[in-house]
C-alpha cells in the first residue's frame, strides 16, 4: 500500500492533470483507493497544491525575479523560524530556504520589474528586525525551472520513423 501511495505521489508530482480514473489504472488500484489517498495527502499537507508551470517570458509577460541572500541574527528560543515566518507571508516571495554556508536565508522574490524587486527588498525585507544584510541576485534567464527545461525554443521533433528493424 505504502509503495502504491509513493507511486501515486511520484506520478502526481510529474503530472497533476491525470484523472483519478487514469491514476487508478496506472497504479493498478481501485478508484476509491486513489480518491482516498489524494484526500489524505491533501489533509495531511503532503500534497500542498496543484499548479501549472508557466513560462511567462514566452507568453510575452515580463517579470523579474531575484534570489536574495539574507544574513540574520537568530532569535532567542525561535532561532530563524520567526524571521522566516515574517518573510514568507509576502505574496511576492516564492520560496524561503534556511541554508548552510556563507549566509542564512535564501529568498526568491518575483515582481513585475527589477525596480519592484529592488523596492521590495529595500522597503519590506531589509527593515525586518534581525536582518543584518541582504545581497540581491537577479535572475537573467530561466534555463530550467520546476524540473522542466525553459530556455529551449526549438520544438522537439519526433524523428522516430518507419524503420522495420525495430
Amino acid at each position: 500500500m505504502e509503495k502504491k501511495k509513493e507511486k501515486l505521489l511520484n506520478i502526481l508530482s510529474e503530472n497533476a492533470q491525470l484523472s483519478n480514473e487514469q491514476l487508478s489504472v496506472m497504479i493498478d488500484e481501485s478508484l476509491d483507493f486513489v480518491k482516498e489517498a489524494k484526500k489524505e495527502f491533501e489533509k495531511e499537507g503532503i500534497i500542498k497544491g496543484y499548479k501549472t508551470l508557466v513560462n511567462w517570458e514566452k507568453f510575452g509577460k515580463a517579470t523579474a525575479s531575484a534570489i536574495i541572500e539574507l544574513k540574520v541574527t537568530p532569535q532567542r528560543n525561535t532561532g530563524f523560524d520567526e524571521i522566516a515566518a515574517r518573510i514568507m507571508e509576502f505574496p511576492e516571495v516564492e520560496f524561503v530556504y534556511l541554508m548552510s554556508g556563507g549566509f542564512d536565508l535564501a529568498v526568491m522574490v518575483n515582481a513585475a520589474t527589477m525596480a519592484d524587486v529592488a523596492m521590495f527588498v529595500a522597503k519590506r525585507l531589509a527593515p525586518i528586525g534581525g536582518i543584518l544584510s541582504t545581497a540581491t541576485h537577479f535572475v537573467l534567464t530561466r534555463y530550467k525551472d520546476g524540473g522542466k527545461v525553459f530556455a529551449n525554443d526549438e520544438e522537439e521533433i519526433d524523428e522516430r520513423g518507419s524503420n522495420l528493424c525495430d
Partner: protein
Amino acid sequence: MIDYSTKINPTLKNIKPSGIRKFFDIANELEDVISLSVGEPDFHTPWHIREEGIYSLEKGRTRYTPNKGFIKLREEISAYLKRKFSLEYSPQKEVLVTVGGSEAIDLCIRALINKGDEVLIPEPSFVCYVPITQMAGGVHVTIKTTAENKFKLMVEDLEKAVTDKTKLLVLPYPNNPTGGIMERDELKAVADFIVKHDLIVLSDEIYAELTYTGHRHVSIAELPGMKERTVIVNGFSKSHSMTGWRMGYAVGPAEIISPMTKLHQFAIMSAPTMSQYAAIEALRNGDEDIEKMRSEYDMRRRLIVDGLNKMGLTCFEPEGAFYVFPSIKSTGLSSAEFCEKLIYSKGVAVVPGDAFGESGEGFVRISYCYSINHITEALERMQAFIKELKEGK
C-alpha cells in the same frame, strides 16, 4: 544500359518487401497524424551515458576497437548477465559486441545455416529472421502462436514442424509484436525438445529488461544443458534507450562465437568506438535508469490495455516488450483495412499485425513508446473510431 535485374542476387530480389513500408508512406503524407507505431523508446539516452560518448570523442578515442569489442565492455556485459539473469560467460571467449542486436542475429544465422538447413521461427515475430535465413540459403519453418496461448511457443507445434534438416530455433521472447513472454517451466519444455532433437537456439532477448507482471525474464540458457546450445542476442537499444548508438552483443559457446567473430571482422571490423564507451557507462551505472523507464512503460501499458478493453477490442495482457497486440476481429475488418481506415478517418497510426507474419492477421500492433498525453489522445480518437464503426458510419 545495364540490366540491373540480372545483376542483383535473385535470392535477395525475391525477398518480399514488408507491408509496413507502404503504410508508413500514408502516415507521412497525412497531417495531424498521431502515431502509436514506432518500435523504439521515446526516452533520451540517459545523460550520464551520452556524456561518456561525448567524452570519448573529446579525448580523440576514435580508432577501431578489438574485433570482439573492448575487453572492458565484454567484462561488463558478462558481469551484467550474471547480476541480472544468473548467466555466466567468459568475456574473452564467449562475448561478441555487435552493431545492434540485428547484426548479432544476422551473424548467428549466417554462421550456422547452410543451404537447405531448416530454421524454426515463431510467428508473429520481428521481421528479420525469415529474410536472413533465406539469404543464408536456409529454409524457414514458421511456428504459429496464438492469443489463446498468450502467444507462447508450444512444444506440440515444434514437434510437428521439426525434421531431420532442422538445425536452429529462433526464440524471440519477450516478443515483438505480441508482448508475450516465456516462463521457466515453459522454457523447460522447449529445452527438452531442443536437446532431444540436437538443435541450437538463437534466443533474441533484446526486451529482457522489459517485463511487467512480476515474472522477471528467464533465459533459456540458464536451464540445465542449454548454455552449450544457446546463442543469446541482447543489446542496449531497448533497455537503455540507445537505439541510435547501434550497440548489441551475442553471447554463447566459444565454438559458435568464434565463427561469428570471423564474419563480424570481415563485414564490420568492430562496433562503433564511442558507442562502446557509452555502453560501458550504461552497464556500470545504468541499472536505475532501466527501472525508471520500466516503471513508466508499465503505467502506459496499463492505460492502453484498459482503454482498448473498454472500447471493445479484446486485448491479451502483454507481459513484456513495449507493445500491445489487440484483436480487431470484432470489427469485421482485416488488419490492413482497419489500419487504413483508422489513419484516414482519425489520423491514428498503428501497425497491421500481418506485417509480422500471416498469423498476425486480425490483430494490430500498438506501441506505448509515447507520453501519457499522447497515448490518451490516441485512445480517445480510437474510441471514436470504434464507435463510428459500430454505428455503421
